């Protein structure tokens, strides 16, 4: 079998020097874990800080006076209302009211910045370019890396490296800062449920910045494995598992990203289905699940009522290191989505009892 070409990250050498186990992911060779291991990296991020290389993600700028208005045709969030230095989580929608991708949009003053999933950029970028219809331009940032510094010590670490803005920025805001004399696009956000930042850095300087950050005793490198357990505990969706082309943002419990004026105008792609889901209630809902016992309920496990009817499926699941037990997210028919509902999970042919629970599993610690 021939192998697909795999892109190496600019920090590939640094990862390997720190004992990384590299795995192919979305066309990139990515660190799954380092010598500390997934469990240790997860717990270290929750109590101090973890540095994640997420340079596989797609970064782009959108230039043009009408950029925000044009983007709103396919994004249901309030993009025109973003103040300078503000960031927002939203979706690229398809015509069926399903999700093409989830993304972060930032108002950088003279342009919009977007960050999309690595696995979706080959679809996202042409879709966005189409929506801009020649009236605004999409500039894909192939020459920028993205680092995520996550955890309660993140702001102190950046402050000591001279990012004086870091500590004062509220969650979901962005600023141009510098580490030493290297300019970085700094956003206070992340996907672990902890306070933290994402740093957009030119590829040629990313190694210098990464080395400065990990020279702090509080910081350990953390890989994709820990990123997945952290985001699952925080109840955050992973595109391709918990979100897809068929699932509406309302089913996913992410209706809060669509403000009232956008619901009223309904002027975004897929709004018919989204508005119907809001009005009538969605047919299925994303829920948290506690499987009883230690056996993890992973993606694809079918969910049954206590009476034995199939009512849904697990979309993400595993062991939650900070929760100390097996946790899962999935979709169930709305009438079975109430907290406390008893369910059965079919794990390798055995029925394991479980319970619908609220999300997140681990409290989020954002800085407002």
């Amino acid at each position, binding site marked *: 079998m021939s192998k697909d070409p795999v892109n190496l990250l600019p920090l590939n050498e640094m990862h390997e020097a720190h004992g990384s186990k590299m795995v192919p992911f979305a066309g990139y060779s990515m660190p799954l874990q380092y010598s500390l291991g*997934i469990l*240790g990296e*997860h717990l270290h991020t929750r109590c101090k800080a973890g540095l994640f290389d997420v340079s596989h993600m797609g970064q782009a700028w959108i230039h043009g006076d009408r950029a925000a208005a044009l983007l709103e045709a396919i994004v249901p969030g309030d993009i025109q209302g973003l103040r300078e230095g503000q960031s927002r989580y939203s979706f690229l929608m398809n015509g069926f009211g399903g999700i093409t991708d989830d993304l972060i949009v930032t108002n950088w003053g003279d342009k919009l910045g977007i960050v999309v999933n690595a696995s979706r950029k080959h679809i996202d970028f042409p879709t966005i370019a189409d929506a801009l219809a020649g009236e605004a331009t999409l500039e894909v940032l192939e020459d920028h890396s993205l680092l995520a510094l996550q955890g309660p010590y993140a702001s102190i670490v950046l402050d000591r490296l001279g990012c004086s803005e870091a500590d004062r920025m509220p969650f979901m805001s962005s600023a141009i800062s510098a580490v030493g004399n290297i300019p970085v696009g700094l956003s206070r956000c992340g996907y672990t449920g902890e306070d933290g930042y994402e740093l957009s850095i030119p590829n040629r300087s990313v190694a210098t910045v990464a080395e400065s950050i990990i020279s702090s005793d509080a910081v350990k490198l953390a890989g994709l494995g820990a990123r997945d*357990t952290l985001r699952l505990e925080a109840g955050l969706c992973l595109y391709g598992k918990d979100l897809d082309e068929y699932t509406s943002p309302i089913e996913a419990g992410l209706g809060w990203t669509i403000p009232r004026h956008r619901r009223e105008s309904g002027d975004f792609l897929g709004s018919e289905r989204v508005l119907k889901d809001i009005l009538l209630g969605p047919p299925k809902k994303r829920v948290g699940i506690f499987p009883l016992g230690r056996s993890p309920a992973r993606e694809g496990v079918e969910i049954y009522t206590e009476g034995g009817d199939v009512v849904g499926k697990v979309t993400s699941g595993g*062991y939650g290191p900070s929760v100390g037990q097996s946790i899962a997210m999935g979709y169930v028919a709305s009438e079975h989505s109430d907290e406390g509902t008893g369910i059965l999970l079919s794990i*390798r042919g055995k029925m394991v009892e479980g319970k619908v629970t609220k999300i997140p599993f681990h409290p989020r610690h954002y800085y407002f």
Partner: protein
Amino acid sequence: MSIKYSKDHEWLVIDGNIGTVGISNHAQEELGDIVFVELPQVGDIVGQGDEICVIESVKAASEVLAPCSGRVIEINEVLDSNPQVINQSAEEEGWFYRLEISDFASLSELMDSEAYETFLLAGEE
């Protein structure tokens, strides 16, 4: 008492007609932090190659195959409450179960330590 390994990275220590089974240190390293093990039950009759245990690490679930045929006579109950013993001591304290070996002929397919080392090195290329 000598240790034998299977191509699927289980080990077997034979003492008379009793075999003790676990996963190799190499397998433990590959799996990463182990959080759950599903063991067979005492009295289960297993055939060589049967998927009779499941290991869940923080990464993924994997099946553990039986390295030989026999009847399970004891399981390592410590693994139920503390599966990380496997990460700490895969080839000693992290044993999975003991069985009464029913088919000694099938043991000829297993490798000794040296052959297993060679097998691992070949797999890396």
